Every structure is written in structure tokens, then in C-alpha cells.
């Protein structure tokens, strides 16, 4: 039996190696995390017209997301209620109906069952009202569509909480915000879904070492990190954030565009946007706007703001994921700049990316080295910067002092344990006021006079 208290310690700084391997735990994650949290589906701009749809996934569930006649968006399970066949095999398109390949049951763009072939003549004896494709809660945050299977879950805005305020830095930005360019590239990676999720939530530490080769060749501000050789004022170069529900990110100041190789126009664009961001959102977020962010929106939606890659890690059992990657662009960017950004993002973090290629093997062996039951008795640690973090005067959540540290790892695993243990969302709500008490150094920022 699984003892959840043995899996992750209270402050999220130690985890049992079981978390990357155990099949029972995976099943529990599916039930308590993926069946209860908001999961990324697609962006509104990718289904602009009535009948436009995409095939999405929520963990192992196949989902259709479709724009309705009244411009609202619905999501429903992509599996026929007759004998279970998958109803739609196209990844995107425009439909007036979804017709099952097996016996021809027809569903409307809203997922309702509208036609059963030979219904009268052959005594189908089916109440059509009860046999629509099961609906999934779908809500938008600034155009980003997320789905949730749990009726008791908080709405999306509450689920994001203060993380939404932080995301608004660029999801609102100078006013028009951002959108995604598709179609997503897709690939399979033999790793547990949490390895890339934790990497994106808070691992600037690996950048200088794992990605040394790419940084050295590509240059830019981050090249100084290559090989961990530089003596840098890490505490003044960025921060880490963790907020309610395990979301988090690390930011490297003034480095938003740094991983792009063709960046002059992007730099100009950012410089033009910045004063408007400050006017809209204030200086605290204007500072973040110019930074490079590595983020995970709990549980499995990760993105790099600045480098413009936006990903979902779909779990396929405990030891495999499917990676879906879109390109994140500002709506104010013109056609030429969008194209440059899309090419640049693929060059670094696409399926053949100069940086992405460095990560895959680490993620795979961090998972598969745990197949040995003796190895698996061991513990993994994410203690870097422990207590060098706390509530901040200008920002919500818990803020860590250096962009190289594991504050947001701890926030991720603290919530991971909380939601796995919780019987219901009400049990999670009970902790809303005290969730951050495991970050004990409450006066860290007060006692740090040079802090900004």
C-alpha cells in the first residue's frame, strides 16, 4: 500500500523515488490529479469559427473541443456512447456533425446525439437525450482553454488564483495579450510526466550544465551560464515563484528574448510594449515582462515565456508521456515577427531543438533508473534555496531569492501531496489560508534590505 506521507515530505523538499515509477501511484494521480484539476486543451484563436474543432487530450482521455453557433466553446469525450469507438480521428477541422465510423451514430457540434441509423426500423431502444458525448467543463483564461472533469473543482480563475495575476504580465501585457500558433508538434518521451513538469516549474539550475553546448554556440546573455563556470550574482538576476495549487515559475531578469538567434525585431517589439505594460500593470509586473520565464501550470502544462514554447506533457502510463508543443506569440506581433518567433522557438525547443534535444535523455533516465526496487528505496531532493524564500512585498505567493534554486519544486510537490491526500476539493479548500506555512522563513524579504 502507498503511504502518501512517505512519498513527499511536508515542505516538498524530498520525494521517494516511487513517485516516478509506481503503477498504483500513477492510478491515484489519474483519479486525484488529472480527473480533478484544470488541464490545458487549446487556445481560442485555433478554433475561431462556428464548427471549428480540435482533438485534445486530458491525461489519457480523448477530447473534442468545438466552437458553438453562439460562439461559446464546448468540450466532450471523443468516444461513442454506443460501443465506445473514437468518434473523431482528425486533429482539427470544421464540422457540422461528428459521425461515428462504426455504426454511424451522429453527434452535433455540441456533442448531443442527433441521429441513430435504422433507429425505428430496428428498434434501437435508446433515449437519445441520455446518450450525448459526455460534456467536460471548459473555461477560458485570457483565451487559453482548459478542461476539468470535476464539478466540485474551483472555477479556472480560482484554480489559477494569484498565478493568474502573474500570468497577466504577458497574458494581458500591453493590452492585447498572447495566443498560440499550431498545429502542435508531437513526440513520445519515455519518462514520468512529473520529470519535465518539475523541470519547467523551477529548474534554472540545469540550464548552464545540461544546455552548455547550445548556449555556447548560440551566445546571448545566457551563454554566461554555460558550463557553470561563471561567478555570477545569481541572487540579483532573477527570482522563483510558487503559488496556491502548485503552479510556479522561475524568471531570469531582462532575458526574455535571449535564446532567440534572430532577435533584433523581437527586442524592438518588447521595448515598445514595455512602457504600456508598466502603465497597465505597474512596475512590479513590467520587470517580469522583460524576464525569461520557465513555468508549469499544475499539473502538466509547461511553457517558456520569452522563448515562446508552450507544452503539455500528456501522461501515458507512469513511464511515458506524449509531448505537444505550440508556439506562444503576442497578438500585437506582425506576420513577419510571428514567423521569426515560430522558427526560433522550434530551433530551440521544438522536436529537434538545440536545447530540447539535451533534456530528453535526462528525463528518461530520471524515470527508468528507478525500475530497480533497491534503487527505488532511495530519496530524491530539491532543497536548493530552502528558507531563502518567503512572502514578498510586491508579489503574491512565495518568492525565492535566486532564479537558481528549488523553491517552485517545493511548491509543486507540496501541492502534489496535498491533492493526492485530499478526499475532495473541499478538503483542499480547507487549506487555502495556510498552504504556504511550510515555507517557514516568513521574514526573508523583510530582512533583505537590498531586495527589490
Amino acid at each position, binding site marked *: 500500500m502507498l503511504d502518501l506521507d512517505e512519498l513527499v515530505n511536508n515542505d516538498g523538499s524530498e520525494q521517494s523515488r516511487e513517485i516516478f515509477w509506481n503503477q498504483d501511484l500513477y492510478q491515484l494521480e489519474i483519479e486525484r490529479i488529472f480527473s480533478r484539476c484544470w488541464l490545458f486543451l487549446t487556445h481560442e484563436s485555433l478554433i475561431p469559427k462556428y464548427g471549428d474543432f480540435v482533438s485534445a487530450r486530458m491525461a489519457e482521455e480523448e477530447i473534442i473541443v468545438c466552437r458553438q453557433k453562439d460562439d461559446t466553446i464546448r468540450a466532450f469525450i471523443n468516444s461513442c456512447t454506443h460501443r465506445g469507438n473514437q468518434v473523431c480521428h482528425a486533429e482539427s477541422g470544421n464540422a457540422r456533425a461528428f459521425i461515428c465510423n462504426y455504426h454511424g451514430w451522429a453527434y452535433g457540434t455540441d456533442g448531443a446525439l442527433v441521429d441513430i441509423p435504422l433507429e425505428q426500423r430496428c428498434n434501437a431502444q435508446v433515449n437519445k437525450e441520455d446518450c450525448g458525448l459526455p460534456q467536460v467543463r471548459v473555461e477560458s483564461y485570457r483565451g487559453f482553454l482548459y478542461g476539468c472533469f470535476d464539478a466540485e473543482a474551483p472555477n479556472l480563475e480560482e484554480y489559477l488564483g494569484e498565478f493568474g495575476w502573474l500570468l497577466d504580465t504577458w497574458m494581458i501585457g500591453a493590452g492585447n495579450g498572447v495566443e498560440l500558433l499550431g498545429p502542435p508538434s*508531437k513526440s513520445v518521451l*519515455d519518462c514520468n510526466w512529473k520529470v519535465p513538469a518539475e523541470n519547467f516549474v523551477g529548474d534554472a539550475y540545469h540550464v548552464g550544465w545540461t544546455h552548455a553546448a547550445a548556449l*555556447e*554556440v548560440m551566445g546571448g546573455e545566457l551563454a554566461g551560464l554555460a558550463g557553470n563556470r561563471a561567478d555570477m550574482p545569481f541572487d540579483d538576476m532573477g527570482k522563483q515563484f510558487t503559488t496556491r495549487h502548485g503552479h510556479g515559475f522561475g524568471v531570469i531578469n531582462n532575458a526574455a528574448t535571449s535564446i532567440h538567434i534572430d532577435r533584433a525585431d523581437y527586442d524592438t517589439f518588447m521595448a515598445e510594449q514595455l512602457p504600456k505594460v508598466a502603465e497597465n500593470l505597474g512596475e512590479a509586473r513590467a520587470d517580469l515582462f522583460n524576464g525569461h520565464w520557465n513555468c508549469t501550470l499544475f499539473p502538466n502544462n509547461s511553457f517558456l515565456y520569452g522563448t515562446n514554447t508552450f507544452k503539455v506533457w500528456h501522461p501515458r502510463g507512469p513511464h511515458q508521456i506524449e509531448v505537444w508543443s505550440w508556439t506562444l506569440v503576442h497578438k500585437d506581433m506582425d506576420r513577419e515577427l510571428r514567423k521569426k518567433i515560430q522558427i526560433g522557438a522550434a530551433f530551440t525547443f*521544438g*522536436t529537434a531543438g538545440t536545447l530540447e534535444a539535451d533534456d530528453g535523455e535526462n528525463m528518461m533516465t530520471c524515470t527508468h533508473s528507478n525500475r530497480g526496487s533497491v534503487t527505488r528505496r532511495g530519496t530524491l531532493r530539491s532543497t536548493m534555496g530552502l528558507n531563502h524564500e518567503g512572502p514578498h512585498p510586491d508579489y503574491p505567493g512565495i518568492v525565492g531569492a535566486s532564479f537558481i534554486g528549488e523553491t517552485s519544486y517545493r511548491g509543486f510537490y507540496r501541492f502534489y501531496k496535498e491533492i493526492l491526500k485530499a478526499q475532495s476539493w473541499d478538503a483542499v479548500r480547507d487549506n487555502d489560508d495556510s498552504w504556504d506555512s511550510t515555507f517557514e522563513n516568513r521574514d526573508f524579504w523583510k530582512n533583505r534590505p537590498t531586495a527589490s
Partner: protein
Amino acid sequence: MPTDTKPKVATARRVTAELQHQIEQHYYTEARMLQDELFREWLEQLVAPDIHYWLPVYEQRFRRDKRPAPTPDDAAIYNDDYAMLKMRVERLYTGQVWMEDPPSRIRYSISNVEAYHTEIPGELQVYSNFTIQRHRRQTEHYTHTGGRQDLLRQDGTTFKLARRKIDLDARVVQDKNLYFFA
């Protein structure tokens, strides 16, 4: 010249048997260079400075879907010019690509070579298929199949690659990355 032009097979002029032979030998040499990690030599000797090296992302769509096939303005896995290819190559010589140390193995089989003259003298439109086998570490093995549409320029007795469009057959890439030159 866009690399996704379908040949007008009835009218296009096929190359002679001798030229066909030269092109095939050229592809075998190219494959051997890539197998032997002669990436700089490959780039300097076989690739034209105005290269467009392209591997688009293909979505699976219904046949009735009238949206056009991807162009270089759309999502891609490779959409590289010479400078980008050079960076990809140089990265492999930094001594810091940990996942290639110990080195992995890659093997190319090139087939179905079909070559035509274009309107421009010395320029050839060439189609080919590939099977690429990658072996890594102890037991990792990946197979990639696909087709290539090349624009080759005759350069004395050899050829320079000016356009390459790679059509990968797998929609969901069954490998941890596609960091190799097809």
C-alpha cells in the same frame, strides 16, 4: 523554387542513366558522411549557402478539409537556413553534448531516387526515400521513415543541396528528438 512542387511526370525531363548514377552515389556519400559524424564537411562540401532545410509539421486532417498543405510560414520542426544549420552542426563539436557521449549510432538507407531537370540548367529536382535507424546507449532503437524532395545544383562533378523538404511519415515522433540530418 518551392520544394513541394509535384513533378509533372509526363513532361518533366528525367536525367540520364549516368547522371542518375552520380546522384545516387552522391547520396550514399552524403549518408556515409553523416554516419561518420563528418558534419562540418557535410555542411561545407555538400550544402549550398542559400539552403532551405525544412521538415514541416503535418496534422492529420479529414480528406474533405480544404486547408492547404503546410508552407514554410507554418509550424515546422526544421525551417533552417545555412546559419542555423551551422549552429546545429557546431553544437555537436562543443564536447558538451552529453547525450552523444558515448556516441550514438545512426545508419541511413536511401532509396527510390528519382531525378529530373528543372528549367534552370544545372538544377535538379530529386525525390528519394529514407529509412534511418538510430541506436543509443544499451538498447534504445528508433526507426524513422520518410521522403525527401531536394533541389540539387550541379557543381562540377558533385552536387550542392539548395533545398531539402523532409516528409516524416510519423505524426507523433517516436523518438526523444529529431536532432539528426535526414
